């Protein structure tokens, strides 16, 4: 396991840190540390401006090939960028989906025309994307997609009918990629296709989903005749499952260390608070704080193992446990934060429901073990893929 980076990488780290120091200030000082999970709906305009500033500095899409405006950055460099970005308090990235999902998908499966049409705007911080995978009836079960895409021969467009859900930032984005069924005679993985769809159009409605925090980061997106051109089909018709699965595979863990930096900031706050209010003297909380510290360090070394593993495209064992590990760690931290806060944890500063940072952490982290594959789905995956145990049977219903 590699615990240290090369001198060249450390040089790169300095470059990132110094650029961020010079630019994440002035008009952007107000958005430092904002826009993360539970706070995604705040400072949207400022964060879009920030994306453009990042782009001008050459700090968007650094992992993309130089041909498309990236830096062709190595995994290590991407990790370093994410770490320094988090350390500097960089705001939640509105360009995240475009940069890490749409871009790599188009680079792998897109036509030349699609690349030319979409990649430059993503790279420039001008176009923002959201995902259209999940559906109300298919939370963890992508193959149960019911949204249809119908070919309108007269207008020569694909028209969409159905509903997507858990679409974060839809109301702030320009495009959505949509996994839809083009052959309704097929079920499961077959008959699906992958489309690039503009959000601002007739026949498409975005409705926010209010969460237990009282805020609304996620949306439902309703399609009732919204359309896209035939050029916006990615891959072949019926190829959707392959494209979608490829896309999920692009997550290489480069953002994990950055995410952990945010976790560390949260844990540090909990520890500071415990020392301040005397919770640090309670034995049960001492045990839990130590556990939280161990857990976060475990995530870190787990990520370093992931990153120093073989680059054969297969998921290593430590990569397969990562989602289950971080999400439960984070959820436990939310509970710990409340217990360290003590009785005051219950009081909301101002009506109607303005939660403080730790209260919001507590409630919002209940989602961590649900989205992106519930604990239950993660355990199935580990048992089936890593341990080779039998697959869960599908029902006939």
């Amino acid at each position: 396991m590699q615990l240290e980076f090369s001198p060249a990488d450390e040089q790169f780290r300095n470059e990132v840190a110094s650029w961020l120091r010079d630019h994440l200030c002035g008009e952007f000082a107000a958005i430092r540390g904002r826009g993360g999970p539970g706070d995604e709906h705040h400072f949207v305009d400022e964060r879009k401006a920030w994306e453009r500033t990042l782009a001008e500095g050459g700090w968007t899409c650094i992992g993309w090939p130089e041909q498309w405006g990236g830096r062709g950055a190595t995994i290590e460099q991407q990790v370093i960028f994410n770490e320094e970005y988090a350390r500097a308090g960089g705001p939640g990235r509105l360009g995240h989906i475009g940069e890490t999902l749409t871009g790599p998908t188009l680079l792998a499966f897109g036509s030349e025309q699609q690349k030319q049409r979409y990649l430059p705007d993503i790279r420039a911080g001008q176009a923002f994307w959201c995902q259209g995978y999940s559906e109300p009836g298919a939370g963890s079960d992508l193959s149960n997609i019911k949204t249809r895409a119908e070919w309108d021969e007269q207008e020569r467009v694909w028209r969409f009918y159905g509903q997507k859900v858990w679409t974060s930032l839809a109301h702030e984005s320009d495009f959505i990629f949509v996994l839809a069924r083009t052959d309704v005679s097929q079920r499961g993985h077959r008959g699906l296709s992958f489309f690039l769809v503009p959000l601002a159009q007739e026949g498409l409605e975005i409705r926010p989903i209010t969460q237990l925090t009282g805020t609304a980061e996620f949306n439902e997106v309703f399609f009732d005749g919204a359309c896209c051109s035939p050029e916006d089909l990615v891959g072949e018709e019926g190829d959707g499952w392959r494209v979608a699965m490829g896309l999920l595979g692009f997550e290489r863990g480069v953002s994990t260390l950055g995410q952990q930096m945010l976790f560390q900031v949260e844990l540090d706050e909990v520890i500071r608070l415990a020392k301040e209010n005397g919770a640090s003297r309670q034995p049960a909380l001492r045990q839990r704080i130590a556990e939280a510290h161990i857990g976060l360090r475990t995530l870190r070394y787990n990520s370093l193992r992931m990153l120093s593993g073989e680059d054969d495209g297969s998921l290593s064992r430590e990569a397969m446990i990562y989602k289950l590990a971080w999400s439960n760690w984070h959820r436990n931290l939310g509970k710990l934060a409340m217990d360290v806060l003590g009785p005051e944890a219950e009081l909301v500063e101002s009506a109607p429901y303005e939660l403080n940072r730790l209260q919001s952490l507590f409630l919002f982290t209940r989602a961590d073990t649900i989205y992106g594959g519930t604990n239950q789905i993660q355990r199935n995956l580990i048992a089936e893929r890593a341990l080779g145990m039998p697959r869960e049977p599908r029902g006939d219903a």
Partner: protein
Amino acid sequence: MLLESAERFLGEHSSSQVVRAAAELPSGVDLALWSRVTEELGWQVVAIPEACDGLGLGAVELVILLEKLGARLSPIPFFASALAAMILRTVPTSPEQTRLFEALAGGAVVAFAHTDARPDWNEVGVKVSSAGAPHIAELNGEARYVIAGGVAEQLLVAARGEGGVRLFSVPSDAPGVSVRHRPTVDQTRSLAEVTLTGVLVEPGCELAADWERGLGVSLDMARILSAAEQVGCAQEALDMTVAYVGERVQFGRTIASFQAVKHKAADMMLKVESARSLLYYAACTADAWLQGSADDQALREAAAMVASAAGDTAFFVTGTGIQLHGGVGITEEYDIQLYFKRARALEAYLGRPDESRERLAQMLLDGPELEGTVHAA
């Protein structure tokens, strides 16, 4: 009978809509619903002595009702009313005690104000000062986390005096009393802050001097009553989760058919039934205390046990309930999150489960042996 009528009434009048509407109010309390309860059902007289227009019953009956109220998150100040009756049963007989019993029996809301912001729920937390015994006393200071404080006509205020802890009866509109609503993370249950500035109290309104023992007993009673709400809250969360997973289809099957989901549900039920067994014991012990056949130690042990078990249970069951609901579990639309918030609030109220266990450990490990653990029938 009590049980069936409670279920029927609450099923009809304490729906999710009613709960959510009350949560919008600053006080968090639906006073109209409370009026119906007091007028039509008369639950407020259950624990009032017969001499004061009450039924003279005790914790066993209160626990039955609070379990059902916890199951519905009902926005009425029954917990405060029940606790006030129990507290009054720890103080010597006096005209003011009688007056308060009768007020409670008439449906008045009486709230208990005893602790400051940190760090403790017990007598150490009593920070309101009192001066002037045995004549007119002057109260100064603040008490927080006062349940139903925002709608109370009358406050029971624990205050520190030279001789120790004293208990006073203070009208909430007395000069120098100010009550501030505090909204909470648990939207369905607000907590008030009571500030007392030079509040003058007649000698007759000192309900008890040297009330430290009474405070301990009152807190244990509060823990037992609170545990009833927790058990009800957990049972309802379990029921609504089992219903949801029985309908929700994923991978072509109801998710209730997945063994992992079934086993979680089994663990939830194991905890609920275990907490309920302890709850019934604790309620019997509370009644035995009221009848003089159980001592403070037995009550303290029962309260610590049930507070630990019910606190952990409600948090685990409601949290697992959210998890098994999947994505909709974290939306405002579904009720499971309201139960989760209530469970978290009650788990912290009067001390976390690990603090209850530490109190128990002191009894088991630091003093002489607990009596009667083996020999009690």
